[in-house]
């Protein structure tokens, strides 16, 4: 029987992660994500896993990457300022193809900002924060229950594609307490590995038809190198432009070619909608109320919500922009995914924006007013 419990978003993140096999967490205290570390510290030893509080944010992600190279499913969590600090090593994990989940419980920025206030100001940083072109997967939950389920999904995607996945939470969901039905089990995907590895086996060799290398964790006999430099199949650094291009193409395509597997969108009341509210994460809750109130008033409103933030849900959004008269983009920032919506719409419909950067929550009334605006 599924168990029903009262749980905070940050706690649900840890429980979902453990259900998916997370056995290592390295972190550093920062509001509003601290409970992710606290819950991990309590729960991991109970399941035979390890928690370590590192000396800083950079060490935390480095430590988690290290654990992952040894074959353990690992996570780190932070908020705005800490997410800035983690960016370099995030890029390392992207290039070296090391499965990892990075939780960012967003808070108001820039700088120290408003540490306890909601924000969605890290959306673009989650896509482009680390230097250089790189693939990324970013997922954003809108309820505590979803936080549990999607934390598990983050691990599965990280393992399947040997790719860091960013779980982009926000203060609204991180600190929210809701009743959650804990499923008896969740789907678990493990990274591709090799049986009986030998030192001769090039660790980064990718079989035709596959997107990622099947490599053994460190310590299992394969004896390969991992580097943050562009490297050959053995993991040894190279200056070859040809190998560099092949590697870049492959790591970008492993995400873009698997768009349908990775991108998830929630659409509500969209069948006959004339006005769509575009939102994600914690903002979704006010948006649903606004859409339902608009419907009660006879306005054909609908909700379009990307669950996967990056890659951007362009396939699903594009037909919507041709169907509706107007899209109201509601996000807790100065306009970030707004630009993506405009890029896809290409002027096909009117786009209104409601963004808040004062630390307060966008209310249903504010969204409703935008829906009603001519």
């Amino acid at each position, binding site marked *: 029987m599924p168990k029903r419990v009262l749980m905070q978003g940050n706690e649900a993140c840890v429980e979902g992660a453990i259900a998916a096999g997370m056995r*290592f967490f*390295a972190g550093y205290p920062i509001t509003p994500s601290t409970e992710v570390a606290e819950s991990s510290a309590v729960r991991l*030893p*109970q*399941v*035979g896993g*390890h928690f*370590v509080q*590192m*000396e*800083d944010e*950079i*060490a*935390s992600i*480095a*430590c*988690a*990457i*290290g*654990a*992952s*190279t*040894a*074959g*353990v499913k*690992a996570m780190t969590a932070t908020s705005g300022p800490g997410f800035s600090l983690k960016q*370099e*090593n995030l890029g*390392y994990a992207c290039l070296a193809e090391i499965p990892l989940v990075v939780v960012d419980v967003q808070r108001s920025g820039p700088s120290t900002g408003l540490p306890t206030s909601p924000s969605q100001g890290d959306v673009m940083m989650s896509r482009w924060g680390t230097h250089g072109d790189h693939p990324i997967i970013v997922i954003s939950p809108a309820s505590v229950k979803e936080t549990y389920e999607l934390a598990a999904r983050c691990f599965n995607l990280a393992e399947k594609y040997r790719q860091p996945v960013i779980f982009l939470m926000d203060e609204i969901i991180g600190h929210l307490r809701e009743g959650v039905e804990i499923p008896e089990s969740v789907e678990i995907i493990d990274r591709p590995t090799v049986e009986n590895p030998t*030192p001769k086996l090039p660790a980064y060799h990718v079989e035709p038809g596959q997107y990622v290398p099947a490599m053994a*964790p*460190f*310590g*299992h*006999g*394969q*004896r*390969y*190198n*991992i*580097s*943050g*430099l562009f490297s050959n199949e*053995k*993991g*040894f*650094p190279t200056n070859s432009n040809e190998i560099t291009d092949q590697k870049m193409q492959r790591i970008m395509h492993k995400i873009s070619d698997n768009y349908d597997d990775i991108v998830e969108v929630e659409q509500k009341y969209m069948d006959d909608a004339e006005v769509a509210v575009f939102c994600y994460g914690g903002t979704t809750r006010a948006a649903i109320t606004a859409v339902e109130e608009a419907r009660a008033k006879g306005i054909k409103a609908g909700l379009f919500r990307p669950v996967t933030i990056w890659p951007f849900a362009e396939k699903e959004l594009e037909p919507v922009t041709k169907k509706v008269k107007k899209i109201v983009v509601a996000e807790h920032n100065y306009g970030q995914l707004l630009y993506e919506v405009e890029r896809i719409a290409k002027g096909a419909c009117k786009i209104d924006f409601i963004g808040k950067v004062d630390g307060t929550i966008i209310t249903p009334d504010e969204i409703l007013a935008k829906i009603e605006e001519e």
Partner: protein
Amino acid sequence: MAKVNMEGVAPKTAQVSDLIWKYMRPENMPHIWCPGCGNGIILREVAQAVENLGIDRNKLMIVSGIGCSSRAAGYIDANTLHTTHGRAIAFATGIKIANPELEVIVLTGDGDASAIGGNHLIHACRRNIGLTVVVMNNSIYGMTGGQYSPTTPTGEFGTTAPYGNIDRDFDIAGLAIGAGATYAARGSVYHVPQTVKLIENGIKHKGFSIIDVADICPTYYGRKNKKGSAVNMMQWQKDNSVTVEKAKNMTEEELKGKLVIGLLKEESYPEYTEEYQKIIDRFAKGAK
């Protein structure tokens, strides 16, 4: 406290060529280091220590950061992780906790370990986690072309200290001892047998160990400071080194400009991963 006898040390010494074929990845040679660089000697010192201890290479984990020193990892036929600048110890911490069976050795430089990575160094010392850190300490940023580092002596020159370095220099081994390292030693590229023994004992030591190895960089540090050739720089190490034992009877004045070689500290303290295992044993479901 185990003492290293620095007089007449004669550990088992394999032929260098045997070590190359056994522990290196010849397909990745030639290495990138300049003629006269001491890094190859330190690489050999590490390989010799591993050979003497008979460590299974499948369980040997080499972690490095960024800089000339850190290219060493790729040349060693083991599990090797070439990480980001300054972060090798933090990556290594994750690996050691995730799989304590691995023998984890961190190869790093003076800038990597004590400037950009200084925070990780002191906290690894404090945690007493079972890593062995070998510092290739050449007192300069070599990879980027000769900028002064935290171990460039005051008054000396680098491309970013064109008028002489006004910073005070770090004693990395001393810093580690101050931060709680339970094993700290200093070797050099001249004192090969002694340094091999110090690394060997560092690997055997339960908990965190650091071997600060005085390295030579004739290309940048040597040239900027008129230290002569690689041979001259090694001659300097020979002429200006004193053993820890001898240094104990010398005054601060007498020790000025001297390289103190040997075991600086060794003490027993619970190791981090073993302590964490006790928590797991107590709180894991089904545990008594």
